[in-house]
């Protein structure tokens, strides 16, 4: 479990070309941006996208510290109902 699982939601899954991706642990904000292709990284860096670590929304996504075995969700603007 020396990995962090990235979960791409909504249109981020289209940008990423997949819904789930495993990346080396640990992972911080700069590591996340470096790992992602440019269009995806730009989108992730925008104010519109939020991050959750193991199901908990991060108030400050740049403070991300994801240990081995954790799950990071990348959440674009929602549209439900």
């Amino acid at each position, binding site marked *: 479990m020396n990995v962090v699982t990235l979960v791409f939601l*909504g*249109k981020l*899954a289209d940008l990423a070309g997949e819904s789930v991706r495993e990346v080396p642990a640990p992972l911080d904000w700069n590591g996340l941006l470096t790992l992602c292709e440019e269009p995806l990284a730009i989108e992730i860096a925008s104010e519109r996208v939020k991050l959750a670590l193991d199901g908990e929304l991060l108030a400050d996504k740049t403070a991300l510290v994801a240990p081995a075995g954790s799950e990071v969700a990348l959440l674009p*603007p929602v*549209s*439900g*109902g």
Partner: protein
Amino acid sequence: MSVTVQLFETAFPPAALVGPFTRAHPGFGGVCTFVGEVRGENDVEALELTHYERMTLPGMERLAALAEQRFDLMGLLIVHRTGVMLPGEPVVLVSACARHRRGAIDAVDFCMDHLKAKSWFWKREKRAGEWHWIEPRAEDHAALARWE
């Protein structure tokens, strides 16, 4: 006060959920129910709702708890579909039983605004064989701001 929150991956029958829900709250003054369906317009062939399972149901449960605190309710039912739906299929159902109409109507209004703009769902529509992501509308955020 009873709260029921459900996610369905396949079609759900609104009337079959609302009937038992209201009968479970005898003595109520009013029950308000909203059902949202896939609209038949703009050549929409299908609608898909994806969600983040780990956060969706907990988020809906938090929403129900907020509504319970805020309105004087006897019962609250929140149901949401995920997956691919065709025009005419139910997407969302909120029903609230209360002693007075104001609580029931406002709770439904509140929950719908929050489900639209503050729950972990992402919507896309299939038109002419192509999928298009639906961006949140400014009016949905304005609707949400009414409750702050």
